[in-house]
């Protein structure tokens, strides 16, 4: 290779790097607004991986496309290419660089996960793994405020605030405070997923899973069931409202003073209509009746 080729290659590599850095910045705009502290961490990680991934993608695709355009055999040319069987130096380089990249990405991911500490500290006890829980000798330190009890069923979400004895089909959380939830399921696997928070946890029947995160942006966001739970799985969604501490207290007080009523429930409604009109396709598990709650949300509520 002469000097000119090397200079050209370096130029192309720099161009690919700049383009990758730009795409890495674009990655932030592919996500929803960052409504939780965890979202900032995850988005940084995603941007970092997008940058590295783009660079590899452009490098490999650029080489391939160059070959496809400029290194085609002319028609009726039956000559072979050069009999190059390998190059030890090159092969060592393209083994070593991925190893270093893997260590880098894994390290970054580990730190990010550690900061998020969705399940509390990273120890077997925190997850309530059956065996680990049985062997634990000390009680975990109780959180400052009592946890909100999240209960999932086929097909409704219900949130219970034990101190105020408030039941709601919409999750309300004060902004900038660590939210502590206990996730339980009454029947099958469900998934607690708030895309704007970038947090998710399967809800496993027979277990109570402690789950925590910190909302940082006021607004109403979608909460979805993320683990397939049967017929009306897609309809099993509701909203999370993040509000100021005073608005939150106000909401709790109003809800506590409201007598419980039957909430809106898409699955139950649809099932009733389908059985009335005989339009149900195949036999299904019968949806649980609509939850009886102090605060009932509506699917009409706008969200971000």
């Amino acid at each position, binding site marked *: 290779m002469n000097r000119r080729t090397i200079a050209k290659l370096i130029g192309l590599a720099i161009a690919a790097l700049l383009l990758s850095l730009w795409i890495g910045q674009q990655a932030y705009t592919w996500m929803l607004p960052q409504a939780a502290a965890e979202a900032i961490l995850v988005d940084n990680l995603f941007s970092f991986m997008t940058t590295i991934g783009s660079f590899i993608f452009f490098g490999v695709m650029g080489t391939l496309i160059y070959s496809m355009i400029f*290194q085609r055999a002319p028609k009726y040319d039956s000559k072979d290419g050069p009999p190059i069987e390998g190059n030890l130096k090159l092969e060592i380089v393209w083994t070593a660089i991925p190893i270093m990249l893997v260590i880098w990405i894994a390290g970054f991911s580990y730190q990010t996960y550690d900061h998020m500490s969705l399940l509390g500290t990273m120890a077997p006890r925190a997850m309530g793994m059956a065996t680990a829980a049985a062997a634990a000798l000390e009680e975990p330190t109780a959180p400052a405020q009592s946890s909100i009890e999240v209960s999932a069923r086929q097909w409704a979400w219900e949130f219970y605030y034990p101190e105020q004895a408030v039941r709601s089909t919409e999750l309300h959380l004060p902004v900038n405070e660590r939210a502590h939830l206990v996730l339980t399921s009454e029947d099958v696997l469900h998934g607690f997923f708030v895309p704007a928070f970038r947090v998710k946890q399967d809800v496993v029947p027979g277990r109570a899973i402690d789950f925590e995160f910190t909302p940082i942006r006021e607004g109403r966001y979608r909460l979805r069931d993320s683990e397939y739970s049967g017929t009306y799985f897609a309809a099993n969604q509701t909203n999370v409202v993040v509000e100021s501490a005073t608005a939150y207290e106000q909401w709790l007080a109003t809800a506590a003073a409201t007598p419980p009523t039957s909430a809106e429930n898409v699955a139950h409604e649809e099932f009733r209509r389908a059985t009335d009109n005989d339009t149900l396709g195949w036999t299904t598990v019968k949806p649980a009746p609509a939850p009886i709650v102090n605060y009932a949300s509506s699917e009409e509520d706008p969200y971000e």
Partner: protein
Amino acid sequence: MSNASLEVASPSFQPQPGAPDNWRRFFTFSTDHKVIGIQYIVVAFVFFLFGGLLAMVMRGELLTPPADLVDRTVYNGLFTMHGTLMLFMWTFPMLNGLANYLVPLMIGARDMAFPRLNAAAFWLVPVFGVILTVSFFVPGGPSQSGWWAYPPVSLQNPSGNLINGQSLWILAVALSGVSSIMGAVNIVTTILRMRAPGMGWFQMPAFCWTVLSAQLIQLIGLPALTAGAVMLLFDLTVGTSFFNPELGGDPVLYQHFFWFYSHPAVYVIILPIFGVFSEVFPVYARKPLFGYPVVAVSSLIITGLSAIVWVHHMFASGTPGWMRMLFMVTTMTISVPTGIKVFAWVATVWGGRLRLTTGMLFALGGLSMFLFAGITGIMLASVPFDIHVNNTYFVVGHFHYVIYGAVVMGFYAAIYHWFPKMTGRMYYEGLGKLHFVLTFIGANLNFLPMHPMGLHGMPRRVASYDPEFAFWNVLASLGGFLLGVSTLPFILNMLSSWSRGPEAGDNPWRAIGLEWLVSSPPPHENFDEIPVVVSGPYGYGSDEPLVANSPAKE
């Protein structure tokens, strides 16, 4: 070495096909590996069209946000059976078909090690294919619990019958496991024991390395899945409580059983496609496979690593933090041997004298889509990011880039590349290139929009969705319909070329390999005289003879 004993035995040592030498032989219990290979491929392709039809109905449902085209129960049955058919009736049989057809020819053997076992393994495929198809017509419909069949949903059985979609599904999967184990024993034995004299490990084509690595995974992993399936069947039918939380069972335990096999299964699928790439690129770039020994061994390294990564499917499940971190690191490690292969293919193509035939285009298209899937795969291995996109369309996009982008495109590359060998006829390049263009555009249009959907939090397996996802879903549906259309030029090409295409000759690509030394299609028992291999498998540009004798039948 066992070839020696084969030669001593009389020709009747292996049962003759016993069928007329025409299309009817494909409907017999033939023990000829080439007949069985084509049987596998054709049956698999029929089910590919069936599974694709189900997918197109799903994409029709997802054109609009509400669940309106089909009922939710029907949609759930569709996505469950789409996944099940595409894996157990298309991908695995298709892989077995390619391995069956090519491995004995490539290693210089007259047939597989156990021809009758081979035929038995194949004839199980239509049996469980029928069971899966019949399950659409039993009361309560087919299984609606996804192809993972996670309990407790898979144990709910709303119809109340003992014979229901779910129990038929489990039966079919168990039979598929039996068939695959039979196939794996056969293929591993064939590669270990029946290589031609002179064919040491590093004279063996890379395709055989990848098939060996893949079939070893079947032998190691399938017992776990079969055990899990049997326990699930007991929970469903006789009231045991392995996985039923109401009776003290643990649903997460099932997930471990399931993924302990079903993640390595992904490598069972992709490894032979890596093998196809390693065979196709040198032929059409006219260059030896770059770094062949390392490419070959990296397949076995992938086999080893594939056994210790399964929990990455369960990062958001009931798993503790330390387990998530451990499996994140092991999963990322797999990218190293995989990266070695990708770079080696690029270096093989680089500086060659390229011929962009249909087979080469499919291999290059498959490689580029695999590259994209590999990059999103590393992202998914990273626990914090996976927590966000786990069970969303981002994952659906990722694995369709692997399984359609790389695997189906790899299948097409293999079919076009070996079609002249299998049939003795040439296909039509124009139709082939049209097929490639439609497939490549269709696949990207279908699966790329799934990534932004997933990043914005659209869960997978939903029959309805919020209106903000409509735009991307319309694009994906258009891509899906285009993929349906793309099979038409392929079918036309195959049928017309097979019946009246121009004669191909023994070696139309001037490729190096034992399969190209015999006539097209190869005669019964392949080789008149077992070849004696004297050089490596990719001697492009160096004019060395591959064998020391003339093995072709006169």
